[in-house]
């Protein structure tokens, strides 16, 4: 498990242990990755983050068309692997989670421990953290730095 924010590690580790999820990605609403578990290639993480954020944006728009409140989560049930995608509020803003799980666990367990992780993240978040502005000239350097942190190289 790799994280850009140290306070995310304990709640995420507990979630991974309890839920039995195979892959997990935590990202901001804009698709910036905050933490990941199970991915081995940076390209996979970036693709999954972008696609996950896109799915949530699409379902949000669908909810708007249906004149209902935005959906909180989306589940894709597969024969071997399933996908759970959810948006949630943290003290650092709205985040998204993408969770891939197999037959060794269940949607009920993933949902149950995901809810607990969200609560834990709310408690673990530092009270005050400086908001870092991402400038265009710093973007590539910050992106590379984030990927190094997420993949240990």
């Amino acid at each position, binding site marked *: 498990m790799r994280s850009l924010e140290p306070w995310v590690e304990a709640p995420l580790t507990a979630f991974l242990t309890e839920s039995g999820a195979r892959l997990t990605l935590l990202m901001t609403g804009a698709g910036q990755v905050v933490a990941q578990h199970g991915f081995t290639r940076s390209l996979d993480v970036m693709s999954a983050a972008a696609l996950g954020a896109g799915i949530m944006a699409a379902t949000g728009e669908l909810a708007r068309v249906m004149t209902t409140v935005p959906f909180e989560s989306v589940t894709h049930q597969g024969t071997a692997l399933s996908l759970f995608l959810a948006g949630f509020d943290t003290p650092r803003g709205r985040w998204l989670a993408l969770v891939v799980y197999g037959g060794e*666990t*269940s949607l*009920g367990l993933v*949902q149950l421990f995901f809810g607990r992780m969200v609560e834990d993240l709310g408690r673990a978040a530092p009270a005050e953290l400086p908001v870092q502005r991402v400038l265009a000239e710093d973007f590539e350097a910050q992106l590379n730095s984030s990927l190094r942190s997420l993949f240990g190289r």
Partner: protein
Amino acid sequence: MSLSELLAELTPVPGVRGALVVSREDGLVVADALMDDVDGKAVAALAASLAERMAGVTRALGQPEPLVWQLEGSDGILLAAPVPGGLLVVAVANPEVNVGELRLRVLHAAERAA
């Protein structure tokens, strides 16, 4: 008979705090009749997980699937009975419940749910 009517046969037993029909594969609540302090989603997810693991044990031993699982803790009892087709009838009760009566009712409910 609806699933709600089925659960209504379990909840009158003194000491029962709730009853659920659970999707066994997903661990999700299909129907429930619970006291306010019982977290139905948690019970469903954990009961389904327990049932799958215990079924795995009996399969590994070459035995048929049990008719009912009974889990006793210091603060309560959980009974779960599989229903053909992928459901599970679950009851949560206080320790002082008449386990024999509840067990019969859970088994009966599972038969009728099939």
